[in-house]
């Protein structure tokens, strides 16, 4: 079986009689004319007047768009955001709107670089707006730039960018890569700050979100929806545009082998795989990173819908499920994952150990509807090198989190109580978040909380091929080979466990019955 192993690839054997593999569905066909589809969606929105009817000459218009964490990997030019924004700006120009701001809705993520912004919105948009200060990154720590809107009936504060709060219309441009994205989470989270986020980015909420990929069962989304209501009641008008893409990561080129089922591999596929593996193994980590992060996926747009936030989101989620949902019968004792080189928080960066935890126990574990793929008390085996490497610009607070917090505890409740506040309000981290390209000081905590449901649910986590000291620091157990890992897991789940290999990416989501 092919396993992603960070920036490398590995072939592993799984016991034949007890293992099953979940492959992602084939890519759906894309829309024939995405630009036309976008224009149609804008003119025929769901539960809303057409966008052109909402625009008027003297208005304050704010276009917010998803940041660098979507999609993964980045898509080939033109980015969907560019297509949508250009369509929106055309309409705005027709209506004579001049006060337009474009904001990368990155919440507590790192600021996007010029290069990244250009990729997302296109050079034409960038060159017309950025030099005039009308295209910029959201700054959740700007003392003059954030407004407290109110509190929800659950006492959650609702905070949003002042520009957004004072706009006549917000157009939010989404790329819904997974079912977690979009809806009120776009505005209530993406354009908000620590004061509001801490009400749902916490251990309690994450443990009640089963999973956070399934909106109906997700406390995270319920909280966001409540905050959304407050926004709506405060008169903040959001015109939501959501898009979905298929799962075509590799195109029809030689890399297609990575998306194929192993038993369908031709001799040529084998040769391609061996060459790719050997090539990657021989490169330095920095070179591997440069090559892999340089990959632009040929995703095709499968749907676009616009209008009222909640109604739009319903339709979008259906489209996401169409592409990704795989029905699975019954849980498993051991869930095996091959973690790839990328997660939402290390685009053009390094996948540090905390992100490894978050990708495995946060994202991949939660890609379920109904029940987790692995039974309660089961074991998660992840394949990843887990080297203690950190990006000094992007992840400064992660380094300290790893050295100071994880050295003390891996219990999310303890870190929430003892350390979160200090990191969240640290002046230096705040400085780096605002002026450099650093994730917010509190962000590593959120990464850990993302995995708190899995931590509670699992009987153990084994990392294959990981740096032993680092893996232990994470509270997991290191194994050098898959068979060692299965051996270690047998302490928890017995000698004859069932194994499910959930092959990701390309992304899919299981519906476990």
């Amino acid at each position, binding site marked *: 079986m092919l396993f992603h192993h960070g920036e490398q690839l590995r072939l592993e054997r799984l016991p034949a009689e007890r293992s099953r593999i979940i492959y992602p569905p084939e890519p759906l066909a894309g829309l024939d004319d995405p630009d036309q589809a976008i224009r149609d969606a804008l003119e025929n929105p769901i539960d809303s007047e057409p966008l052109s009817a909402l625009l008027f000459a003297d208005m304050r218009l704010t276009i917010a768009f998803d940041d660098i964490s979507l999609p993964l990997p980045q898509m080939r030019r033109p980015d969907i955001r560019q297509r949508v924004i250009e369509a929106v700006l055309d309409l705005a120009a027709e209506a004579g709107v001049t006060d337009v701001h474009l904001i990368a809705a990155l919440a507590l993520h790192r600021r996007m670089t*010029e290069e990244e912004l250009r990729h997302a919105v296109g*050079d034409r948009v960038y060159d017309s707006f950025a030099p005039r200060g009308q295209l910029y990154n959201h700054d959740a720590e700007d003392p003059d730039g954030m407004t407290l809107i109110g509190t929800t009936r659950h006492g959650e504060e609702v905070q949003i960018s002042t520009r957004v709060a004072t706009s006549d219309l917000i157009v939010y441009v989404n790329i819904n890569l997974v079912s977690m994205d979009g809806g009120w989470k776009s505005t209530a989270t993406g354009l908000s700050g620590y004061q509001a986020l801490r009400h749902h980015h916490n251990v309690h909420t994450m443990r009640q979100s089963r999973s956070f990929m399934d909106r109906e069962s997700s406390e995270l989304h319920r909280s966001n929806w409540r905050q959304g209501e407050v926004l709506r009641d405060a008169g903040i008008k959001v015109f939501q545009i959501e898009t979905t893409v298929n799962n075509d990561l590799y195109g029809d080129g030689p890399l297609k082998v990575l998306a194929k089922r192993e038993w369908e591999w031709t001799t040529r596929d084998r040769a391609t795989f061996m060459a790719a593996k050997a090539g990657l193994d021989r490169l330095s980590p920095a070179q591997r990173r440069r090559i892999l992060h340089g990959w632009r996926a040929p995703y095709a747009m499968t749907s676009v819908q616009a209008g009222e936030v909640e109604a739009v989101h319903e339709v979008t989620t259906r489209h996401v499920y169409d592409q990704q949902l795989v029905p699975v019968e019954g849980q498993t004792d051991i869930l095996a994952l091959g973690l790839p080189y990328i997660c939402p928080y290390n685009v053009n960066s390094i996948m540090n150990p905390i992100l490894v935890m978050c990708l495995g126990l946060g994202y991949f574990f939660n890609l379920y509807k109904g029940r987790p793929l692995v039974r309660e008390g089961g074991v998660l085996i992840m394949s990843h090198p887990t080297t203690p490497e950190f990006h*000094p*610009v992007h992840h*400064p607070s992660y380094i300290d989190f790893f*050295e100071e917090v994880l050295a003390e505890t891996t219990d999310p409740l303890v870190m929430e109580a003892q350390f979160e506040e200090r990191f969240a309000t640290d002046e*230096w981290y705040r400085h780096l978040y605002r*002026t450099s390209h650093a994730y917010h000081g509190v962000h590593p905590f959120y990464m850990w909380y993302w995995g708190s449901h899995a931590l509670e649910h699992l009987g153990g986590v084994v990392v294959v091929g990981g740096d032993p000291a680092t893996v232990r620091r994470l509270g997991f157990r290191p194994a050098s080979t898959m068979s060692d890992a299965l051996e270690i897991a047998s302490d928890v789940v017995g000698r004859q466990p069932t194994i499910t290999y959930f092959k990701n990416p390309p992304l899919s989501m299981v519906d476990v019955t």
Partner: protein
Amino acid sequence: MIVDGLAGTRIFVTGATGFVGTALVERLLRCVPDVQLTLLIRDGRRTTAQRRLEREVLRNDCFDRLRGELGADGFAEVAARVRAVSGDVGSDGLGLDDDGRAALSEADVVIHSAATVAFDSPLDRAVEINLMGPVRIAETLARLGASPHLVAVSTCYVAGNRRGAAPEEPVTANPFFADLDWRAEVDAARRTRADVDAESRTPERLDEFRARARSELGPAGGPLIAERTESLRKDWVHDRMVTFGRSRATSVGWPDAYAFTKALGEVALTRTLDRVRSEGGPDIGCTIVRPSIIESALAEPRPGWIRGFRMAEPIILSYARGLLREFPGVPEGVIDVIPVDLVVAAIIAAAAEGAAAAEGAAAADSPGIVQVATGDANPLRYQQLVDRVRDWFTERPLYDRNGQPIVVPDWTFPGRGRVEGQLRRATSVLERAERVVAALPLRGTAAQWGAGIEEKREQARRALSYVELYGAYTECEAVYGVQRLAELDSRLSAEDHELFTLDPRVIDWDRYITEVHLPSVVAHGRARSSPSKRSATARTDRLRAQVLAPERQMAVFDLENTIIASNVVATYSWLATRRLGTADRVRFVGRTLLEAPALLAQDRKDRSDFLRAFYRRYEGAPVEELRQDAAEHFSDLLLTRSFPDAVRRVRRHRELGHTTVLITGALDIAIEPLAPLFDHVVCARLGTRVESTRSGPTEVLTGHLEEVPPTAEARARIIVDLCSELDLDPRQAVAYADSSSDLPMLEAVGFPVAVNPEPRLASIARKRGWLVEDFGSDFGHKVLPMGPAWRERRTGRRLA
């Protein structure tokens, strides 16, 4: 004879802080009832003679036995019988005050054991102490009209380079004795010192020292270079005087300056006593005791007791550590070693007999000569010694830094010439390697590897010096007669025999080597005799804990290569190319690479000049644009190349409540975004002026520094000033820096830390026991960093 002969007498001892002296004082106190001791001790630089007596003599583990036997009170009572007088055998009249003179004139016995025993003493020092010392004692006694019995400790090796029997007879009786005028030798030695000193001050020599100091310390600033130059000059004078001593000694038939000056000392003493007697002065009886190579105690005060590192110990340890693979010598040759307690017993016996003679008993011939050696009565063959040592270390190996046992090499008994040749070659290869390493731009671990080479070279050089120094002794084939020692022994009473052993035949060599001497050497040399790896990391941990203790008040950081792996040239290059088109970029790279060697050379020479000249390039640069770009430069260059461990350390100090300070030659605009990390930032500032450009009046840089850039010794000043301004104590400050040009800053504080040190600083840090931190490698590795290409098409040149 001894006990009743010396009981209640007053004995005046010189050299009490030495190996033999300490054992002698202890033995007299322990075994001779009611003896009163006066010790002639030189005042220390900051301590008095009395204080040195307490600290360096009475607190030595030699007295542990006595202390144990008597208890604290009993010991204090005994210790009250000892007192120190301040003086120096190196100055005329022994530098005694009235009190000291009184003590000397009242003495019944004077035991002179002060000597410079280093075989590589400078000529004049050996002459002043070893030759003039005994003369001064005799003359002072004569002037005081006192006639105690004088026991002078000399050495068997006064017999010089010869084969065969060396009986207990005066040096002058030796048929090979070149009839030297001792006074002429003294004058010559003093004159040589003056000449060598004069030569060391010639401009040619001083230039040479200065050049060496510069290459050792790099651009560390004037005062430090000057200090180092002066110390190099003193070292040079010292080395020259050592060479003069060795040459003079060999030219007249002695192995080294020590034996040579000791021999002339005996001659001079005898002649002075004769002159005093013939001039009608007091008749001072004298015994000369000549031990051979004195080593650890056989039994008294305890088996294996030793003080200081002597001749055989460093050689043995070097061998056990695998550093010294060969040592010259003939396998059947005799190594004349004598345990210190036998020497002490012989001295006391001679003193007792002398005291008795002075009271009018049977007059022995003066001076009496007693040799305390084993070569005649109980010889130890070189082969036997080597075999025992090898067996012993094979069974109980020493361990290297990594906890691995060191295998001892086989000994092949090569000739001296061959060993010296090998070592000389090794030393020169290592010296060359060291120079190469020093010239390479190494950092951190690699530079410490350079320091490792330096350590190896140092070891090889030391091994070479052992061979040069002691080789003659292992190859010496003289056999020292102990006729008179045997006679002295035979005159001892039964009671004396119980307390004092001076017969060398009692030594069982195998037992002495394996059970007494080697365990003592290993313990004394603090050699690693167990495979634990901890000590090195424990030391680092301890130092780190000191640095991070809450009572520290300030932490000062250098920037370049301490917190970030970058420099002013990289910053300039980044900022200068930020708004350039492709063609201009290529031209820029070409030009900068061409200039690089000259820039580097200037930087190495003087950091301030370099900065001053380099910053001229910013002339005319618009301030506002630079400021905008600097924000980007912060992420793209500074943070990318920062050491996360270093940043965390700064923050850690801040958390601990220490005042954090950044001192750097970098430009204020460029490092502005880093400022929030520190409480204070001291950096270079350029002047500004307003120029009218197409877009109206613009503030531009003048390219001239507004004040002296904070480099080298200026940094020490800054720290001191800042401390007094903030009411902090520099001794409670920590400083982090990477290069020897930061030495003044490191030396200005109580807790210096070398971060990713370059080779010169690595070497200095190792020698001084400073904490060395490896803050790890940075993330980006561009040779010449450039700003990302300017995408908006209005590129233009801005910086020269």
